[in-house]
């Protein structure tokens, strides 16, 4: 077993003149996890990923992939890296299969037909293998980007908003594929705007805003720490609560209680002094990652 972390980022900063796109960010990825990097547009997600793949030169800090520094030991670091950029890359005159052949070669593999065929089939591109990039649909182009990043079976896959502008069906199949990659031992770092996805896919998430890493943790922990649950209670008759701390709304027989996800439902109900005999119906709504996300982003402003 390799004891080195798939990705280690230490005090990474990236400045453009006076503007800091990434400010002193440090975090590690654990072996075999899916890590989601969330943040609004312009938060620095793409800059951060660009620094990992050396498309952008960092201003200070260090990044290593499986123990290899991306600058000092560049080749070793890059051979373990698969990178799917946000924008689709065109390739002029070459066909899908040729592109994947070239890309394999760039990673030192001159004979890779078997794995390329596997990827083409897996990503539903096999029947389009003789087409040029411009003949492909938007979704196919995206899948080609992913195939390119996987020709050399990287240990760490970086996905920069791979599902932006992709229809739901394709999005779901892409995420299924990402889960398969995870099962085969690949570590994945992804950025996305679709919070529900991050919620269902990611083992851990980091929230980045204005270049700063605001929060990092297990997805479930972050949700329970930062989100609220809502409990809708329908009573048999009108009730008066002794404690209205968690009461958000009361309309006739309907009460809406809102409380931090870390609290137990029983505690909340008993603290309000509500008589269980008067309850006709209960409905619980879980707080979403979206709520947590907005809360983190708004912390500075509150």
């Amino acid at each position, binding site marked *: 077993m390799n004891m080195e972390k798939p990705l280690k980022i230490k005090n990474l900063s990236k400045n453009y003149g006076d503007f800091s796109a990434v400010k002193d960010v440090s975090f590690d990825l654990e072996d075999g996890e899916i890590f989601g990097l969330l943040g609004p547009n312009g938060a620095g997600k793409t800059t951060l990923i660009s620094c990992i793949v050396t498309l952008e030169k960092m201003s200070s800090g260090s990044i290593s992939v499986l123990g290899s520094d991306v600058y000092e030991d560049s080749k070793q670091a890059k051979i373990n890296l698969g990178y799917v950029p946000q924008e689709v890359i065109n390739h002029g005159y070459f066909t899908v299969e040729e592109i994947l052949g070239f890309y394999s070669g760039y990673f*030192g593999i001159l004979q890779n037909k078997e794995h390329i065929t596997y990827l083409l089939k897996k990503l539903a591109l096999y029947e389009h293998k003789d087409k040029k990039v411009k003949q492909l649909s938007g979704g196919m182009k995206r899948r080609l980007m992913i195939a390119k990043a996987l020709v050399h079976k990287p240990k760490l896959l970086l996905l920069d908003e791979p599902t932006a502008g992709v229809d739901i069906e394709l999005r779901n199949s892409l995420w299924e594929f990402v889960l398969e990659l995870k099962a085969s031992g690949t570590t994945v770092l992804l950025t996305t705007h679709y919070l529900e996805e991050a919620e269902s896919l990611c083992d851990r998430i980091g929230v980045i805003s204005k270049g700063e890493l605001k929060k990092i943790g297990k997805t479930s922990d972050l949700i329970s720490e930062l989100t609220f649950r809502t409990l809708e209670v329908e009573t048999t008759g009108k009730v008066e609560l002794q404690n209205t701390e968690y009461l958000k709304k009361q309309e006739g027989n309907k009460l809406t209680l809102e409380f931090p996800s870390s609290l137990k439902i029983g505690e909340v109900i008993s603290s309000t002094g509500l008589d269980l005999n008067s309850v006709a119906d209960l409905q619980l709504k879980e707080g979403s990652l979206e709520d947590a996300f907005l809360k983190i982003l708004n912390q500075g402003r509150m």
Partner: protein
Amino acid sequence: MFDFSKQNISTHPFIMLFWKEIRRYLKVMVQTVVTPAINSGLYLLIFGVSLGSSIDTGFDTPYLAFLISGLIMMSCLNNSFQNTSSSIISGKFSGDLEDLKVVPLSSQQIIWAMCLGGVTRGVMVSSVTMLVGQVFYYFTFGEFLEIHSWPALIFFLFFGALSYAKLGMFVAFLAKTFDQMSAVTAFVLQPLAFLGGVFFSLNNLSPFWQKVALFNPVLYLISGVRYSILGQSDVSLMSSVMVAIVSLVLFHIIVVLTISRSQFKRW
């Protein structure tokens, strides 16, 4: 080292990029090889065959032979320059230049693989030009033009092509738009090539312009090829050799410095 069935990140990425550069221009043969050959044919027809009889270069050989040697070097330089520069410019436009930064290729490997790819195109087109020239020569004089020195010819074609391939990389990496790229070609390279003695000898110029022309490095490169083919040229062989070596070293240094500071990002 050359076991192609195994993964090897020290040599295989270089081999693949070199091969891709060749495949790229072969995909558009008409544009990259056939068009230059037709151009050379037209120059030979108009200047060589039709106007040539009234031009006296002061050389012992017919004007057609003088022109063929000039065209060979001009097509060699132009095409190697075109290959690296258009590969990089189109890579900036489509985004696949980014790929080179993300994969395990060093800057030196990128430079050499792309430049050697450019050299193959320069040498290929100049060979086609020579072939077309020989056909014209044969039909005009009933015999083929003899090559004075093959080693010298190979030396000048290779060094010239490599220097221009590096120059092409340098200009393309610096260029911020298509316009800037074509401005360099139109305002700097074409004039230098045309005034570098492809079509005329220094003997055809007035003493003042002869002195000016001696500052044009392309003159020495073209003269080198002219010497290799005809056994005589406007300037000494030694000065041509020196210019060929110095331009290669100079352009290599510039391109290394440029690439290490350049963005591979798309436009």
